[in-house]
């Protein structure tokens, strides 16, 4: 029986995992870097252990330190969250070797799915459709052209060890091929220490649709419907929803079965996500498998009513899935907006600082997963996500309107956020129609300014607010009402006194 879990992560996902643990009566252990000594996940845990300086390479990415903390805390198990060490097969193995339970898939499955070429090969052998392309890395420049000719331009050169858009090049014509190949190889080598690249057909404006699966050690494997994550910026998902407006019951069943095939092909256990590219004719191709809990898992929880983290713990503890395929039912529609500390008016540049004001929306159909409170710092060292704002609605339309309402209630002062951007997307006709693709933002929002507001009465009120604040402050200074007023007065009289003396002397 798992009785104490160390969460090898920070921010909202650490808090999210702790919440499920608490509901299961499981004690929680946080780890924290220097920057996170005062973080919400540190505060929320039952116990907390310091694991080093702020850079993640010296703290959250150091497996030994985490296992050491788990031993000091007498934890039974480690939950990795997402990111950091979540898809590190070696760490998963270290955890097992230390006699701890790893709340995640077997190291072998992580390893296979982490290598894109191996993953392609594995799932293809199980009959899973993949994007047309090749199962082997490019050996030499000579074979390059002949390979491409077989599938035709445009093509994508991808790093076998890839991720996050690194070591990736789109090529539209033969003359760019060789330089793109060399560029991708050297980037892959720098980023992953592995220069293997391979070729896939480039699918223009695809939709990104993924299937959540959950497998136990007793041979049960169930799919929990799909999520559409087509709204991306800088190769990163920003808005996700479930179900997908494209997917009908037939496609869902087909994708679900395919996802289970892919999972079984690598001996998968625990929660995982099989990502597909899809076109508007409902063709779909295996893209990769994420061997962890995803950022966007709450939208699946909202439409299925299943707590995925609890289920992860149950499965890691040797339990059978608490549901079977037949009992999984989808109800309503859920949307997630990732609330990053960033400036959407300035190419989504990260924003750091203190949350001077912080109040989350609430009421019907709202779920906020966050790892901050008022006064929290958004540190420079990590992903600048403040929270995931999720809504549930009986229909997609209701969910969209509810998201708009929730965004309008959200109060964050001190850092720039993507809230105005999300509001603009929720209002966009193409989004409302469900006409999505991974190029959505480029297609519809290029050089858009989100913070511009055209409602005269709001601009007028903002102007009045600034004036009134200054008016109040100056009154306070002149009458000395508050402590702030006092200190200003002290300063002023000090300066005047300081000025006066030499003048008197000069007379």
């Amino acid at each position, binding site marked *: 029986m798992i009785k104490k879990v160390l969460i090898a992560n920070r921010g909202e996902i650490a808090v999210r995992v702790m919440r499920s643990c608490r509901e299961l009566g499981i004690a929680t252990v946080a780890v924290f870097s220097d920057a996170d000594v005062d973080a919400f996940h540190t505060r929320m845990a039952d116990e907390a252990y310091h694991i080093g300086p702020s850079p993640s390479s010296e703290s959250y990415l150091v497996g030994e330190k985490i296992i050491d903390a788990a031993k000091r805390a007498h934890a039974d198990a480690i939950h990795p969250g997402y990111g950091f060490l979540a898809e590190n097969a070696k760490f998963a193995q270290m955890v097992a070797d230390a006699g701890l339970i790893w709340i995640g898939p077997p190291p072998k499955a992580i390893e296979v799915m982490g290598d894109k070429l191996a993953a392609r090969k594995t799932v293809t052998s199980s009959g899973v459709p993949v994007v047309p392309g090749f199962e082997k890395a490019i050996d030499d420049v000579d074979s390059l052209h002949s390979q491409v000719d077989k599938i035709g331009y445009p093509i994508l050169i991808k790093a076998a060890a890839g991720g996050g858009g690194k070591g990736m090049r789109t090529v539209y014509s033969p003359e760019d091929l060789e330089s793109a190949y060399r560029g991708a190889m050297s980037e892959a080598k720098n980023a992953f220490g592995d220069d293997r690249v391979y070729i896939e057909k480039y699918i223009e404006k695809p939709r990104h649709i993924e299937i959540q699966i959950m497998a136990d050690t007793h041979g049960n494997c169930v799919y929990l419907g799909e999520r559409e994550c087509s709204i991306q910026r*800088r190769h990163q998902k920003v808005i996700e929803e479930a179900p997908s407006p494209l997917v009908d019951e037939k496609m869902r069943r087909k994708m679900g079965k395919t996802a289970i095939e892919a999972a079984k092909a690598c001996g998968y256990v625990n929660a995982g996500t099989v990502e597909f590219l899809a076109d508007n004719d409902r063709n779909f191709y295996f893209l990769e498998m994420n061997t962890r809990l995803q950022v966007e898992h709450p939208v699946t929880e909202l439409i299925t009513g299943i707590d995925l983290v609890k289920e992860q713990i149950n499965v890691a503890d040797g339990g059978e899935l608490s549901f079977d395929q037949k009992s999984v039912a989808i109800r309503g529609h859920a949307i997630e907006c990732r609330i990053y500390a960033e400036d959407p008016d*300035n*190419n989504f*540049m*990260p*924003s*750091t600082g203190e949350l*001077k*004001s912080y109040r989350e929306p609430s009421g019907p159909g709202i779920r906020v997963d966050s790892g901050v409170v008022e006064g929290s710092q958004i540190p*420079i*060292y*990590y*992903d*600048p996500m403040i929270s995931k704002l999720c809504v549930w609605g009986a229909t997609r339309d209701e969910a969209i309107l509810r998201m708009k309402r929730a*965004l*309008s*209630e*959200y*109060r964050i*002062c*001190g850092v*720039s956020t993507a*809230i*105005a951007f999300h*509001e603009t997307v929720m209002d966009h006709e193409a989004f409302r129609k469900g006409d999505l693709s991974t190029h959505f933002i480029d297609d519809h929002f290029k050089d858009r300014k989100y*913070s*511009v*507001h055209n*409602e*005269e*009465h*709001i*601009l*007028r*009120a*903002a*102007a*009045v*607010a*600034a*004036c*009134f*604040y*200054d*008016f*109040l*402050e*100056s*009154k*306070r200074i002149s009458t000395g009402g*508050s402590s702030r007023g006092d200190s200003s007065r002290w300063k002023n009289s000090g300066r005047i006194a300081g000025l006066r003396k030499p003048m008197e002397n000069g007379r």
Partner: protein
Amino acid sequence: MSYLAKIQDREFVVGLDDKGKTTTLIVDGAPVEFRCTTRKNKHRFLMLIDSKSYDVEVNRKDGKFSVFIYGREFEVTAEDERLAKLRKVAGLELSDDGHKEIISPMPGLVSNLIKNVGDQVSKGEGVIIIEAMKMENELKSQIDGEIAEILVKPGQSVDKGECLVRFK
């Protein structure tokens, strides 16, 4: 007290006066129904203007005001109207300075230089890439101009507010 307030491309003349316990408001010469309550935290308050409700928060920031209203933060400048008029008459507009440099908006690592000293750059063109929070961030020029000086090198870490590039 009369203010000249600027927000986005709009200007408002805002008159505020204390009449006993209440404050009167005049915007662009016309009196407006106004009611305001502040709690202990004086920079967060509720305004009722013509019975419309505004739950606002005002913070001073670099000599301007950052006003949170209707779910967004706006930058507002507000100055004494007479001073503003005098300045206008004297031709002393507030200068658009600060754009002849590129300042790092965050601490990070210089990962790449897109332009070099002597390059002609148009407004909106990328000049330098800073890596922070696991992402590469392209810093763009805010003006058309020629690069006079680049003060950092790839691989160098920089602080927030550090000057990275100077234009002629």
